[in-house]
């Protein structure tokens, strides 16, 4: 009797273990990518997003007329081809006939018309409405002067979309890679309204569709069987984990809980390069880190040579090698290298050695009347952050040692800092960083137009600069346009309204088994190009 019981218990055990093993096999068959995605996504609504964490998810969920390739260059997406009229004002896109929503219905030109009208509609209150302002009437619609129906976009038939611009816009095609210009399903949006982004309601046309959205935890996407390129999509399920604590994110990566990270703690970069070289990834990023002068205040307002002196005395090579240590490039210009159809400009002194620069800086300081008995007092403002503080201390030391400048370092919490800087209420200098939205010089140069408002951190005003950008805005010859913009950048640099410090890089981790994770200047990583190896 006892033996039989033993036997039965054994059989049950075997059964349990067997099914367990079976389940494990099935789990292995599913390819999963677990991405650290930085701060929690604000929204999956492409028209209401503002940040990169949202954009990464939306790039997997949706596909625009154009789509980023593995190296972030524009590739045909929903549009299989397009023509441009002779005056560069009318774009006619032909949509692919196998473009489908995740519910199996076709993606039509009408979906684009609906989405774009919603983006510029003031009722939507979209941050990124200005992305479509190059389209005829778009700006007037956002400002409430015209109804959304007047937008210069038309569905000629289900597969033909005609867009009329207000002026030639060379970056218009590249802007189609940005999530704000993607389509949403007109049918789903009309049915669910603002709730169209909830799991169960959300219909997408990209490589993935929404499975779960748990705030402050994760967004889970699964492969979209109706996607036209579904056969080439290797990853079945992708998790975007909210990881705003970068130290915790890095630990989760080390423990194998994440396959890729959003960023990494600056103090761990050297360690990771040394100890995890196969996983450490870094590439130049489309952004620049600068110090801006408050040009409303003296002595800066009337003293460009003094501004130049401070700029000269910063040893940028030393700064990126010893302080930031993330492979950043020393910056002598505003627009990063690698910008499409553009040659980045440099400060006139970029060719000098640091010793020559320091010598010139001392002379300029003396001419401006500052010296050991009359030291220059500078107040520098930045937001709280270890990295910003280290850079500021290094620069303050350089200024102190070389020029005898006394620097008062002030730190404010992020939103307080933004408020102070936007009101130009800082005294002398403030930190400023900028990442371009689309790969075009315009996304950098625009900021220093005198009519741009609070976004211009230095309150730089130059009529000639504005005029050059205006001319570039209507120039349809790309080479001539580049020359105009290059001249504008030179004017900005020669005015020394800003001190370029470094161009950004994007150090992060991607496990060696993550294949197809290719570094690029926009730092786009679409999951559909990724596969999981051994």
């Amino acid at each position: 009797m006892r033996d039989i019981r033993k036997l039965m218990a054994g059989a049950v055990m075997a059964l349990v273990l067997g099914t367990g093993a079976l389940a494990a096999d099935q789990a292995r068959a599913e390819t999963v990518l677990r991405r650290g995605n930085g701060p929690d996504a604000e929204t999956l609504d492409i028209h209401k997003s503002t940040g990169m964490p949202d954009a990464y998810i939306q790039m997997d969920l949706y596909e625009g007329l154009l789509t980023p390739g593995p190296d972030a260059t524009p590739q045909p997406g929903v549009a299989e081809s397009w023509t441009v009229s002779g005056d560069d004002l009318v774009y006619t896109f032909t949509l692919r006939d196998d473009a489908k929503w995740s519910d199996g219905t076709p993606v039509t030109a009408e979906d684009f018309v609906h989405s774009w009208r919603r983006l510029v509609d003031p009722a939507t209150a979209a941050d990124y409405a200005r992305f479509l302002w190059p389209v005829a009437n778009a700006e007037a619609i956002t400002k409430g002067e015209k109804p959304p129906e007047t937008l210069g976009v038309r569905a000629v038939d289900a597969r033909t979309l005609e867009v009329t611009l207000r002026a030639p816009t060379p970056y218009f095609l590249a802007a189609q890679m940005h999530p704000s210009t993607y389509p949403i399903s007109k049918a789903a949006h009309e049915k669910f309204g603002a709730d169209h982004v909830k799991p169960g309601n959300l219909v997408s046309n990209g490589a993935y569709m929404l499975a779960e959205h748990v705030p402050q935890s994760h967004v889970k996407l699964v492969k979209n069987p109706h996607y036209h390129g579904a056969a080439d999509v290797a990853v079945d399920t992708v998790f975007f984990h909210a990881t705003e604590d970068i130290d915790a994110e890095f630990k989760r990566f080390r423990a194998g809980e994440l396959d890729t990270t959003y960023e990494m703690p600056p103090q761990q970069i050297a360690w990771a390069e040394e100890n995890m070289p196969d996983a450490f990834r870094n590439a130049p990023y489309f952004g620049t880190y600068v110090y801006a002068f408050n040009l409303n205040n003296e002595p800066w307002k009337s003293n460009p040579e003094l501004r130049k002196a401070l700029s000269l005395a910063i040893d940028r090579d030393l700064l990126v090698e010893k302080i930031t240590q993330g492979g950043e490039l020393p910056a002598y210009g505003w627009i990063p290298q690698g910008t499409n159809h553009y040659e980045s400009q440099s400060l006139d002194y970029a060719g000098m050695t640091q010793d020559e620069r320091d010598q010139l800086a001392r002379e300029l300081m003396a001419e401006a009347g500052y010296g050991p008995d009359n030291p220059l007092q500078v107040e520098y403002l930045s937001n709280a952050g270890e990295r910003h503080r280290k850079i500021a201390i290094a620069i303050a030391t350089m200024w102190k040692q070389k020029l005898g400048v006394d620097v008062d370092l002030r730190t404010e919490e992020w939103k307080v800092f933004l408020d102070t800087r936007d009101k130009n209420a800082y005294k002398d200098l403030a930190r400023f960083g900028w990442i371009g939205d689309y790969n075009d010089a315009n996304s950098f140069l625009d900021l220093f137009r005198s009519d741009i408002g609070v976004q211009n951190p230095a309150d730089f005003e130059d009529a000639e600069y504005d005029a050059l950008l205006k001319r570039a805005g209507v120039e349809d010859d790309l080479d001539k346009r580049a020359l105009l913009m290059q001249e504008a950048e030179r004017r900005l640099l020669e005015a020394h309204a800003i001190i370029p410090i470094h161009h950004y890089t994007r150090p992060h981790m991607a496990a060696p088994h993550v294949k197809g994770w290719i570094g690029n200047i926009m730092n786009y990583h679409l999951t559909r190009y990724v596969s999981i190896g051994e």
Partner: protein
Amino acid sequence: MLTYAVRRLFGAVPTLFVIVTLAFFMMRLAPGGPFDGERMVPAEIEANLLRAYELDRPLLAQYAAYLGGVLTGDLGPSFKYKDFSVGELIRNGLPVSLRIGGIAIVGAALAGATLGSIAALRRNTVLDRALMTGAIAGVAVPTFVVAPFLSLVFGVYLAWLPVAGWGDGQWRHLVLPVVALALPQVAYVARLTRAGLIEILRSDFIRTARAKGLPERAVLFRHALRGALLPVVSYLGPATAGILTGSVVIEQIFGLPGIGRHFVQGALNRDYTLVMGVVVFYGALIILFNLVVDLLYGALDPRVRYD
């Protein structure tokens, strides 16, 4: 007792009103707004945003509208997490925070009372001193030091437990956050229990119980502990508050989708409605727990009666 409870609940209304009012105006006093970022939006678009979230109305009108919403249970939309209302965010986060906090507080009470009793019974021995030194350390070392340390040791080096994340709420994801959250409370409860028990064991009714010839076990469990735990029970109210505020740090470090994390992120993002929603909710919760503790006290202590 029922009349007492009802009277206390009514008394909580003005308290909550003050909390809501303070939270509302203090949030608005903080510089910067929910839609500020490195990338500024053109003035017209900002105006559209303010209109969409009714932030263009006079402050007092906004306040009145918010109060009206709170009365009907509507805490408004989140300015930052635009796919969710504040009510939805709190509903989503509550089970996580409750589970972590509940286990932590029950665990802290049990472990603290046990350790405290052991220390009291072995008074002035090496064991007692070791336990009390540990307790002081537990109270003194802040959670934001203990938590990353635990996750580094048990998550990264030993790889026994997940470093962070909620998973589907499996126990493996709960262990480290609960331990980190409970540690200071364990320490505090242990000290309270020890002090209480030592005092009780010296009192007359214990001497009487012993004189009756009761076995030591009965003296301890039937008579002494009941009295010794009174300070512990009265501490549970503040402990709940401590667990709630502690969870703000813990949820951040362990990446848990609870209410505390919303509170921190909400404050940093100037997500006015989310912060106010969490404050109102926490306020109500703490008032409720204090009431429960007072009622429990009455049940335990024969000297306390509510009429």
